[in-house]
Each structure stands twice: as C-alpha cells, then as structure tokens.
C-alpha cells in the first residue's frame, strides 16, 4: 500500500512517501502501528496512536477525501495520506 505524507510532516519524517506490505484489509490504526515502527526515530506516529485516535499530531486521509476513524478499513488500492493536524481557524 502506498502512503503519502504532506509537507511539513514529510520534513519531520524525512520522506514524502513510503509503501508497506500489509495483510488486507487493514485498519488505519494498524497502519499507524506499522508506521510507528518504521519511523521510530520521530515521535510522529508514536504520539498519534496514544490516547485513542485523536488527530492532534496528524490526520489521515483516504483517496484524497475522507478523514478517518481508527477502525476504518483500507484496501491495497486505496491511497492513504497523512497531513499535518488542522486546528484553529
């Protein structure tokens, strides 16, 4: 599955995208757990999984449209994107 990271999240991770091999279907929470291991040099995904799934570190975004809850499922053909948290406004 292809996963993209929007700037400035990409800067913190040192990468704009990555791919993971994962059983299908997979939940967003499971993807985040994999990413926490992959990017263990930063706190980005570690903090994002703490305290439930409150998107105050990043927000997940499926196929360019939907914000997700932790138990939402993804297929291999889905494109998942993480963007910086959108607060304030």
């Amino acid at each position, binding site marked *: 599955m292809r996963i993209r990271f929007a700037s400035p999240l990409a800067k913190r991770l040192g990468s704009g995208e990555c791919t993971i091999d994962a059983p299908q279907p997979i939940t967003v929470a499971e993807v985040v757990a994999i990413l926490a291991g992959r990017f263990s040099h930063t706190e980005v995904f570690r903090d994002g999984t703490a305290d439930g799934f409150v998107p*105050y570190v990043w927000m997940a*975004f499926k196929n360019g*449209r*939907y*914000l997700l809850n932790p138990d939402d499922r993804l297929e291999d053909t889905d494109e998942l994107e993480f*963007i910086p948290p959108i607060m*304030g406004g």
Partner: protein
Amino acid sequence: MGGYNNKLAYVNLTANTVSWRMLTREECRTWIGGSGLGAKLLCEHSSPGIDPLGPDNPLIFTTGPMTGSFIPGAGRHQVVTKSPLTGIYGEADAGGKWGTVLKASGYDGIIILGQTTRPVYLYVHDGIVEIFDASALWGLDIYDTDAALKNLHGPDVTVAAIGPAGEQQVLMATIVTEGRKAHTAGRGGLGAVMGSKGLKAIVVAGDRPVPVHDRQRLERSIEALAATIEKRTAALQEFGTAGGITGFERIGDMPVKNWSQGSWPAVEKISGQTMSATMKTGRSKCQSCPVGCRRTVKNKSRYGSVDGAGPEYETLGMFGGACLIDDLEAITQANELCNRYGIDTISTGAAIAFLMDLYEKGFVDLEKLHGAPIAPGHLPVWGNAEAMLWLIHAIGRREGIGRVLGQGVRRAAEIIGGRAHECAFHVKGLEMPAHDPRAFNSMALGYATSNRGACHLQGGSYFFEKAATMPEIGITKILDRFRTDNQGDIQARLQDIMCLMDSMKLCKFLLYGGVNLTVITEWLNCLTGFDYTVEEMLTIGERIFNLKRLYNIRCGIGRADDTLPRHILEEPRPDGGAAGNLPPLAAMLQEYYQARGWDGDGRPSPDTLARLELCEY
C-alpha cells in the same frame, strides 16, 4: 453566587450620563452572560427596526461568568449590537485581557446608548465610569490610541478602541483591544457602531478578583484535564492557527482565487511553519490560557515594518488564498494595516478578492468606481500584493474605491451592478470566512443558519469533523465531513453549545483539548454555585440561539435568507481535496428546521417558544 459582579453600567452618550443596575440572579441563571446576556439586553433596549448607525442602537460589551477566572481559555468578552454591515443581529468576541480587566473594574458589562457629536472615551475603574473628551485621539490609529491612553492613565490600563475606519463608519470596522496585540472583535462592522456614537475607546482598570463558589473542586477538575489540553493542542501551540493552513488547503477548504480554484500548492509559502521559520518572535496567550495559539512576529520588508501580532489562519486564507498572494511578508503587512485602521481582515480580504475577480471577468469599470485612474501597479490582478495593500489603505481611510469596498461585498455588488453579484461571497451580508462549505457539508448548514451571517464558529461543526468529540450529543468519533444524513440535529445542538461557550466566555479552541459539555457544566457549577445539568445547559443554549433568531425574524429574515451564494451550491470545486462535492443544503435545511422546532419559513413554532420561555420576545 460566584462568577459575577452582579452589576451592569449604562452610559448614555446623548445625555452624557452614567448609571448602573444590578444584574439579577435570574438573569445570570437564564442567560449566563456574554452572548446570551448581550442578546437579551439588545432585545430589551432596542427594536429591530432601528438604524444600526443611529442613536437608538445599543452597543453592548459583556463578560461571562468565566471571564477573568483561572479557567483555561476564559479571558474573553463579547460585543453585541445590530450590525451595520448585515442589518441583523451582530456580535463578535475577542480574547486577550480586556474583558478580564473590565470585570476586575467591578462590572459584568457596559451598555452604551445614544450618540455624541464630540468624540469621547470612557475610563472605567473601581466601579466608576467617567466620560472624557477624545478630540485629541480622533484620527489616531489603534496602536497610537493605545499608547496615548496608556500615557494618560498609566501603563497598567487596558484599552479597547476603534481606529480611523471605525471613526469613518466603515462597515467592516472592528473594535480592537490591547493595541498592537490586536485582540479583535472583528466581524459585522461593530467598530462603525462605536464610531457612530462618537466613542473612541473604553479604558479599563481594576484588580477585583472573580469570586469562585467552590475553588478546590474547580481546581481539581481543571487539573484533571490539564495534561490532555496540553497534549492535544500541541500543534496549535507550536504553529498557531496558521499551522493548519497546509491541511486546510489539502482538504479543499481554502477560498482559493475567490472560491473558484480547488487547490493552491503555493500555500506552503505562507504557512504557520514558514512564519515560525522566518519571522516569529514568540507566542502570545489570552488571559488564563495554557494554549497560546497567537503569534508575535517581527518583520522588515519592502512593504514596511511589523512588530506585533502575526496573521491568523483566516487572514492568510483571505489575503493569501482568496487573492492568490503567496508572499508572507505582504500578508503580514496587510494584517498590520488592518489592525492599525481597525478593519476586519476576513471582510477586507473578501472585498479585495471580489474586486480582483470582477476585474478579471470585466465586470467592473475601475476608473468610474475609484473616481480617478488607477496606477498600473495598483491594478487588482490576482497575486498583486501592492494592489492589496493600496486597497487596504483605501478601505481604512474610506477613500475612492475603498468607499465602495468598505461597505462589504453585498452592497458593493449592488452599487457596481451587472453581474458583480456573481463574485460576491457572503451570507446575509457577512463575507464568508476562509472555509469552503463544499469541503464540510455541515459548514454549508452552519453558514446558512448562523445568526450573524456566514460564520464558521457559530456552529463550529467542522471541529468535530477534524479533531474533537462531544459525547453528550452523540458525537463519539470524528464525523465524516461529506455525510448527508443527520446534519440538522447535530448542527442545531452544536450551535446551542457554541452559544453556551460564547455566553460563559470560554474559548472554543479548548474543544480541541478534550473540553466537552460535561466538563464545562462542571466548571460553571463550581464557579457560580448553580446546579446546572447538561440537559439544562443545552436548553439554555437553545434559548439563546432562538432569541437571536427572533431578533432576525423581526429584521425581515426568513427561509429565503438561509442560503449560500449560488456558486457554492452549484459549482463543485474543480480539483483538490473537496473536488466534485456540493453540499445538499435544501435537504439539510429541512431536517434542521424540524430539529429546531421551526416552521417551513424558519420561524420557531408556538410550542418551541413556550418550551424555551421566549413568548415575551
């Protein structure tokens, strides 16, 4: 009873008199304070048919019971009046510490009545309200007014003032507190009402503490949530509201090119992250707030010097996204000019984007509108920062083309005529802020039904489609922003809760930090000694919302006004994160009216009025 001084000041500028009355326990229990009390006082002291810029329009400053307490995010005050921009109910809130100090002076609110022909300012301290001549201040900008009044009354006073725009009754004028810190009651042209009264400023001073009914219990309750607030607002602390701009652009929420373009990759040049890296000097906080979402910046560029408040998301969204200006230094200067003149950055940005749109489409005769030729460098073409700054001066000074733009896009479109209305993005006369209802269906319903016209904060529903929950009304997980079902009831209940926040005077950004209705009910009870239940709180919020609606109905508002610009309802964004989506407003509105207990024209039914004890209004 904790939380209140139980005292309201009245200033009649026609008669040059000051008086006061007790704020009763019943008024506090029923209307809480802030927005609720303000709406009640507006109905009490005026009829909806009045001229907003005439002597009969009261200008009401209120605090809430939480204002000035140690509750996080409670350093806020409300301003309520009939809006000259929209001609309906008008209100705006501001943070900082002016409300805290007003309360510390001994009053829960000040009601300004009448008008004076010679400029005056008020000095409120130790339970005393004095009226002073302001002739020497008239004409000064916000920063200079603040400095001059501190010079006169000492550095510890806190000032709410209008700038040259308010004096000239520009219909998008603001009331700004604390000078260059620029905590602003921004929307609806409330500064023009203050200017129409000849009131330049209200200076407050005092040190009276807010009485707290059960301090220990309140401290324990706040402490229990402190770490969660700290953690969940980390991004807001680090990058401010501007930090969300890349995300907002990515989800198709920004008003790019006056709402016509779906995406704008240049957004990163003006983001909170770029601001932090290039000009940020620090973070500033409103009174008692642990978050501190506001930025201070220092910048010297070819546009001028700035040393003060940095631009917020809305300002970046309107001057940046809507006008396609990707120059952070220029936008920072635009923000500075708006703060000095005292004009709303949202409405000003919207008016400039409107003009750029008209000019590109050939819908406007610029020379005729301005009354003189416009220099080539000031032509309103997309992305022209010099034109933006020149137009801000024109609006702030009410000169040339600025005389028209400063009246807001609805009136400006009427004056220009032809197809100009196609480029005017407003609801009920209030320019749309920098959030696209095509990116959050709930925002469409929120804008259409907000009592002050297009506003993202009167329902705040998008908080719950990004990062917040409200279990008390069934929002236990983040909502899908494109959902089409169950919009009416959720929007109504969230508007009721936002009425409560605006009445207690608690910052809505605390909702990101895990604050919910149970928490605020507990805090309010600990503070005041009342025994509100969550259900009763929801009914109070509903009562307040409906009272404002009743005021608007008497101003002529009905079903036909609960709508959005045609473009937003019929033209999908062509690309980006909200491409193709159109909010199903008609269906949502029907559901909403039912949830509210309103008839088909949006009027509260007799049963609803009786249930909410609003029959006398």
